[in-house]
Structure formats: structure tokens, C-alpha cells
């Protein structure tokens, strides 16, 4: 386990460095005049010059890079030229809503686990075929299309739930009142539904593969009841890959479910980025993406470590 952890952390460092390099290249090395890009569309020549000086854009590239990393370490992601606010502050404000959405969506998607298992055990029945086909179809629906449909159907037609916005939160992520909660439902269900489809499909696949393993045959040969065979022997093996997927999902969503937040006009990291795109507000976009990537990278790390813990081969041998 120790060997594994060390190797993994080493890889983490390399990846983080790589991420900063690529972000740096995209922000500063590709566009014609980075200073102009960062200063914004309507910046005055003085402003552009000021930015150039402030960020050291007149210096050689490697120096620029190190200054960039230096700023990152201090939590300085630049300033939105559109809103004239530090990006870090904007992220801090928008994060809770996004995290709330992410958690809700993942909770919903965990329903896919029993669905997938059930489907696998009842292979060839009508139920299984229906569920699997439905899962494939839903999985393929682009999330913003589904979001629009949900809005139209539940919001406009049935007038049940609010279409847009979000409410107040307590404890950072828990909805403070009904309105808050209600505005969470549609976006969470939209995201969750597509993920449930994916997870149930994957869980079914994993379960099918496990259930035809030799050790399952051995378990049956010992006279164990089918229930015991499934719950004790199969489940433990089949759920490992799926938990990995769910964990990665959580990480990805935390970084900003941009399409969903845009469709539902729900304040969050995603919406923040979207609004910045329109204004070509590069610092915000880059800052948001960097933040999301950081969370995603760490989520992957935790998932890998979790996997190492669960699999006795890695846990004991490293």
C-alpha cells in the first residue's frame, strides 16, 4: 500500500505541474497578445500596458511561467476584467451551489447500482431488456437537451417546479428552505438521470462479468443459496468498478456542471464560466477551469486510494 501511495502521489505532482504548464500555455502562449486577452475587449491601452507589467509579460517565457505558478500558490487567479473582482473570490462564492448540485446528483445516481444488479440477475427477461435499452437511450441524451425538456415539461407544462435560479443554503450545502430545495430538484434530477443510466449499465456489465466467474461457480458448488452467492461473493467484486466511477463523477461534477447550470440559470461555477465566455473574460474562464481541474485531479486521487484500500492485493502488497 505504501509503495502504491508514494507512486500515486508522485504521479499527482507531475500531473499538477503538467496542468499548470498547459494552462499557462493556453493563457499566455497561444493568443496573439496575452495582455490584451487578459485585459478584456474594451480595455484601454494603458490598462493593457499595466497588465503586461503586472503579470510580467514582457519577460522571457520561463520567467512568466514561474511568476504564474507563484501567483497560483498564493491563490491569485487573476481578476475578472468584466466584474473587476478577484477570480478567487468569485469561485468561493459560487462553489457551494455547485457542490450542492454535485452531491445531489451523485446521490441520485447511486440508485443505478441496485438497478444494474437487478438487471444483471434477471438477464433475458423483459425487465432487463427494457431497463438496458432505456439506460442506453437516456445515456445518449445530451444533458442540456434533457435539461430543456425537464424545464419545459415539469416547469412550464405542469408548473410544478421552478425553472431557474437557486436559493439560500445553510451549512454551505444544505438547502435552507423549500424554495431552495425545489430549485435544486430539476437540475439534480437532470444530471442524476443520465448518470443513473450510465451507472446502471456499467453495474450490470460488471455484475454479468462477475457472475460468470469461476469463483461464483465454486460458491454454488458449495451449496450456498443463490442469495448468498450474489450478496456475499458477487456483489463485493462487482461494486468496486462502479464505486470508482461514482467517485470520479463526483469530482467532475464538483468542478462545475456547466451545461446544467446554464440551462437552469443556476448560480454556480459553471454559470460563472459561461457568463465569462460570452464576455471573453479569460481570467475567469481559466480560473474556473483550473479550479475544476484541481478538484477533479484530487477526486481521482482519492478514488484511486480508495480502490487500493478495497482491493486486498494492493492493500497488502503495495
Amino acid at each position, binding site marked *: 500500500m505504501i509503495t502504491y501511495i508514494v507512486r500515486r502521489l508522485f504521479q499527482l505532482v507531475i500531473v499538477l505541474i503538467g496542468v499548470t504548464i498547459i494552462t499557462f500555455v493556453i493563457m499566455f502562449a497561444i493568443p496573439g497578445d496575452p495582455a490584451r486577452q487578459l485585459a478584456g475587449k474594451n480595455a484601454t491601452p494603458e490598462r493593457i500596458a499595466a497588465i503586461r507589467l503586472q503579470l510580467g509579460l514582457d519577460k522571457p517565457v520561463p520567467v512568466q511561467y514561474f511568476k504564474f505558478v507563484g501567483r497560483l500558490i498564493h491563490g491569485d487567479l487573476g481578476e475578472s476584467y468584466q466584474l473587476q473582482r478577484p477570480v478567487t473570490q468569485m469561485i468561493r462564492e459560487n462553489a457551494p451551489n455547485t457542490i450542492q448540485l454535485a452531491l445531489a446528483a451523485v446521490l441520485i445516481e447511486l440508485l443505478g447500482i441496485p438497478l444494474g444488479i437487478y438487471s444483471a440477475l434477471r438477464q433475458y427477461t423483459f425487465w432487463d431488456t427494457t431497463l438496458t435499452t432505456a439506460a442506453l437511450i437516456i445515456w445518449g441524451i445530451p444533458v442540456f437537451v434533457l435539461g430543456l425538456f425537464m424545464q419545459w415539461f415539469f416547469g412550464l407544462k405542469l408548473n410544478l417546479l421552478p425553472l431557474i435560479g437557486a436559493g439560500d443554503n445553510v451549512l454551505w450545502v444544505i438547502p435552507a428552505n423549500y424554495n431552495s430545495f425545489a430549485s435544486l430538484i430539476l437540475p439534480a434530477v437532470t444530471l442524476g438521470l443520465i448518470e443513473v443510466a450510465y451507472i446502471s449499465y456499467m453495474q450490470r456489465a460488471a455484475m*454479468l462479468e462477475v457472475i460468470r466467474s469461476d469463483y461464483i461457480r465454486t460458491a454454488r458448488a458449495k451449496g450456498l443459496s443463490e442469495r448468498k452467492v450474489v450478496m456475499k461473493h458477487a456483489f463485493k467484486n462487482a461494486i468496486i468498478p462502479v464505486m470508482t466511477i461514482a467517485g470520479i463523477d463526483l469530482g467532475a461534477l464538483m468542478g462545475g456542471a456547466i451545461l446544467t447550470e446554464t440551462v437552469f440559470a443556476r448560480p454556480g461555477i459553471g454559470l460563472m464560466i459561461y457568463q465569462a465566455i460570452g464576455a471573453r473574460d*479569460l481570467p475567469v474562464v481559466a480560473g474556473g477551469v483550473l479550479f475544476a481541474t484541481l478538484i477533479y485531479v484530487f477526486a481521482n486521487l482519492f478514488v484511486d486510494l480508495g480502490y487500493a484500500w478495497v482491493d486486498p492485493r494492493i492493500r497488502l502488497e503495495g
Partner: protein
Amino acid sequence: MPDRDTSGKQATEDLTISTVSERDLIEDKLVGRKPLGLWADTWRRLKRNHLAVVGLCIVVVFLAIGMTEEIGNFTPNGYLAPYDPNATNYEISPRGLGSPPSWSHPFGADYLGRDVFSRTLVATRISMLVGVIAVAIALIIGLILGPISGYYGGWVDSVIMRTADVFFAFPYILFVLLIMTVLGPGLWNVFMAIGILSWATYARLNRGSVLSVKAMEYVEAARAQGASDLRIIFRHVLPNTMAPVYVAIAMGIGGAIVTEAALSFLGIGIQPPNASWGKMISDYLSYLAAGSWWMLTFPSVFLTVTVFGFISFGNGLRDATDPKLKE
């Protein structure tokens, strides 16, 4: 799938979970059909998967629609479409809200009186184009770097794979968005952005296959005949390792189409006069509340169906080429 907010799926492409059932395995083992050669075998297995066959049909149909401009002129407009997609007709759009589906306009007309069916059809071409070209770019890069990485190993391998790790570390759609913000909207930028960011998947797949094939005897045989390293890679190793790559291509095209739709929806993809499904959805969004549902419904349906087709076919292809069935 890369469109979605949960863009971590690229990592899970490595999971070789297959949905082949126990019955399929037993049957294949017992029936003991002599392999008819890679493709006949795969086709036989694919045929049994009805969903995948449906997917394949969808893929073929849409690719065909997308290529009609190359194939030839069918109508006065030069498209398969009945109307000129850009021809406005204010009369059939009272109050600027378009008109619902009717006999003359099966998908209705948009707020400028343009025929939605024609527009949707023409947008097919752009979407297919993006899918195919973006994947082609990614594939070319991946097909070069992957085998090199796998064949040479050592520090070359480490460097390339670490770089791939870094590309995988970014949530896919945000990554694409970032590049598009810097490059600006436009068709070619979309090709480039999606293409360049997707190379890692193909590189990794190729490398994996190359690694497993590297040890095989015919590589030794070729080397014994004095073939140069490069020749060995491209003529001997590569053709036998392509199966997972074909699956990735199918899924990749689907993903690229959705990513482009998402980009256009967010306003940073295709620009007028080009139209894509995503752009249409975005353009017609505000008319939904006013009750004009048909404008964005049909592009949405086309988009969903196309993506579904690619995914199903990709899944079916993956199951059909599952090495666990190769006895």
C-alpha cells in the same frame, strides 16, 4: 461521453467491462465455430446484438445525409432538403414566432420563416463533419504517439504517457471551452480544439494493444527478416491491435458531435452562416417559453438519435470484439 458535465469518462474507457452474457460465452465455447477471420467473426456477433444493429443503421443513415453534398445534387438547392435553409419567409411566421409543423413544413418554420426540416437536415452535415474530422485529428496524433510509446518503452513511453495523464486530468468539456475561449469561435477552431484534446484516448489504447502484441511471434519473425523498426510497427503490429480503437472511434465521433453541440449551445462553437444542431437549439431557446416548441425539438431529437446510434454501435462493437470470446 465527453459532452456531459461528468466528463471523467475517458478514464473509464480503460475499464474492459463487457456485457457479454454467460449464455453467449457458453454458446460460443460449445458451438466452437472456427474463427472466420476477424471481421466475419465480429460481424456475426454484432448481428446478434439488436441494439447495436439499430445503432449502425442510424450511423450509416446520418453519415449518408451528411455526405450528400459530396454525392451530388438531389434538389435545386443542391441539398437533400426541400427548401433553402436560409430562405426567409416572413409570411408564415406571424408575430415572429414561426409556424407549427404542417404538411408543407413537416418540422415547422422558425421565427424567420425558414423551414426547420431543411435547416435540421443541413445542420446534419456540419455535425457529422465535426465528428469525423475531430476524431480524425485525434486519431492521427494518437496513432503516431501511441505505438511509438508502446514499442520503444523506456523514457519515451514515460514522457508520452505522463503527458496523456495531464490531458486526462482536465474535465473534458471545460478544457475544450478554455481553448475555444482563447481561439475564438468558428468551425476550424472547433475541429482543432476537440481533435487536439482527444488524442490521449487513442494513444493509450494503441499503446496497450501494441504492448500486448509486441511479444508475439510474428514480430520476431519480421525482425528476423530484417525489417526496420518503423516498418515493424506500422505493417505488422498496428493492424492487429486496431479493434479497441475502432470502438473508440465510434464512441469518439458520438462524443465529438455532442461536444460541438454543447459548444455551440454555449455560444462558442459554430458561427453563422453555418448551422449545427447545438446552435439551432441555442438560437431557438427563447422561443420555447412563447410556445414555439418545434423549432428546437427536432434538432434535439436528431442530436439525441445520432448520439444514441454511435453509442449503441460502439458498445455493440466492443462486445463483439471482446477478447474474452476469442477462444
